[in-house]
């Protein structure tokens, strides 16, 4: 395919997305934002698979993306349920409040 995006560019975008998600996960205290950051990181991984698949012309990467997508969907379902429980228990969405397991 002519004019295709070079793989390095695609991987750089995926890396940037991943780091963005990671930084978001580390700096945000709101648990909803943390979930969103995780989604971004998952999508970064998915993008890396797509880029690699298009570079080698293999369908495996797309299959992996679909797997990631469905995993993310399941994760969000469970995650949001946990968020609801979290909120009803702590009356807040601040993840740092839940530190009962402090050693």
């Amino acid at each position: 395919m002519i004019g295709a995006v070079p793989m390095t560019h695609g991987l750089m975008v995926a890396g940037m997305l991943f780091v963005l998600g990671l930084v978001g996960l580390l700096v945000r205290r709101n648990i909803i934002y943390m979930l969103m950051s995780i989604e971004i990181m998952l999508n970064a991984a998915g993008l890396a698979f797509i880029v690699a698949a298009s570079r080698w012309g293999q369908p495996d990467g797309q299959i992996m993306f679909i797997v990631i997508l469905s995993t993310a969907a399941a994760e969000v379902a469970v995650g949001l349920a946990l968020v609801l429980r979290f909120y009803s228990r702590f009356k807040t969405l601040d993840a740092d409040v839940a530190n009962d397991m402090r050693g």
Partner: protein
Amino acid sequence: MFSLLWLVPAMPFAGFVILALMGSRLSRNAIAAVGAGTVGISAVISLGLGMRFLLLPPPGHAYTVNLWTWIDVAGFTPHVALYLDALSMVMTLVVTVVGFLIHVYSIEYMRDDPGYSRFFAYMNLFVGSMLVLVLADNLLLLYLGWEGVGLCSYLLIGFWYSDPANGRAAVKAFVVTRVGDTAMALGLFLLFTKLGTLDIQDMMERASQQWAVGSGLAILAAALLLGGAVGKSGQLPLQVWLPDAMAGPTPVSALIHAATMVTAGVYLIARTHTIFELAPPVLMLVAVVGGATLLLAGFAALTQRDIKRVLAYSTISQIGYMFLALGVGAYSAAIFHLFTHAFFKALLFMAAGAVILALHHEQDMFKMGGLRKQMPVVFWTFLIGAMSLAALPLVTAGFYSKDMILYEAWSSKIGGPVFWAAGCFRAVITGLYTFRMIILTFFGEQKTAPGHGPGPFIQVPLIVLALFSTIAGFLELPRTLGDMPLFSHFLRTALPHAPLHEGSVNVEALLQIIAEVGVLGGVIAAIILFARKRRHILNLMAKPWAAALHDFWFAGWRFDALYNALFVQPYIHLAQVNKDDFIDGIYNGLARAAAAFNRALSVTQTGRLRWYMMGIAVGAVIALTLVVFL
């Protein structure tokens, strides 16, 4: 008749078992009946055996009964066997008869004690163990009895256990005698490995065949046995436990620490005399130990305030006499003195106990006085016992036995005038402290009012023993006074005669007169110093050197302080150092390191999700870096 021999030790053991198992459910009368009755049966049987032994002695003048085989391992087969010869017959009679009288006395003496059945159980166990000791056919069984009496001594010294001082005295007695017992156990090991048997008669025979006189092995074996004897009999240097042993009830002091157990060392040496004869230096050491102890304890007795401690030092001193006699080869004289001493010393202790009981457990002689009128029976019996102890001439048992020892010490081939002089000098001191005790206790003005006087259970044994303390001496009349050596004649089948130089009767008479002048001098000096002219004593005590000497003797020549500094304190120090077990330090250190590490790690467990995320991220970066750059 001789087949009843096993009953003699078995009866007190049966009494012990009954009292130990059912003592708490029996009435006081039943306890007294079991406790004194079993020993009484033993006494009757042994009196019967004694009659039979005199009239119709068993073949070879010894009767052995093999009850059962104790152990049978690789040629080591000690039997539980009893051996009755003239020597063990005398000891059995002393133990059962004196033991029975003391049990009868205890019925009244201990009447108000809450531990009545416990007391009689221990006393019965003691009598049984002592009989095993004296009747044992082999040294292992003898050692069993030896340890049994040591255990009972410990239990009875600490009988009133609620006072920690009594417990300490008991532990002291046990530990100090243990030093001697360890030596004795080593002696038994040596004898068994070298001679291949522990049977006493066999062993003596093999020893005299295999060992030359003065050979190293014989000397070592005899010295180790002597160690055991010295510990049990309260001789130098292990005498420190006996004065403290007076913490026990008075019947215990009379039975164990005067009449029977403390003389076990004398019995042991007489029993194994063949080995001692093969080791002349050790035999000499026995005499020297005896001589040194009798002087040392005599001076200590002179200064004591507690009536029982006077008697305790006097016992140490009298056993010193017996050791002196053993050391010069006068075994019969030693056993004869053991025999008479058992009567008069038990009598003295029991009479002192009656005084102590009447004065509500007051033992300080300086708080007694003037009891002669209130307690005539106790006074007269005490006086008879004291005269016997001081060996006043002709009418007392102590005179004949002491005289026999002194004469044989003078004329023995291994003795000599030195030992005679020590014994003679000792006789002066004995007269002095004995009559000091009598004057302080029974004469002068009354300082403490006595409670009710002693009842029949106390008076009858006192009178019986007073009788024995007088007539027992007539069993052995010296050449100057009738020449009737019945006692040593009886013992001749078991013990050899002392190796005496030929001496004329005149020399013997002269020696007796010198010794008796010494005794009477001591008695008269006591009467003058303590009754008539007290100011001489007070003047003397005002001088600093005399006061220092008094304190020195009062503390028993400061042996306690010496041993405390030499053994006890270093041991306690060592224990303190090692209290937090040195080896444990390594493992405790490991545990502490693990705990510190754990605390450091648990700080990282903040419970915050983002902190963990950070950990994962940093970890991942590090892992990636490693993968990429390495």
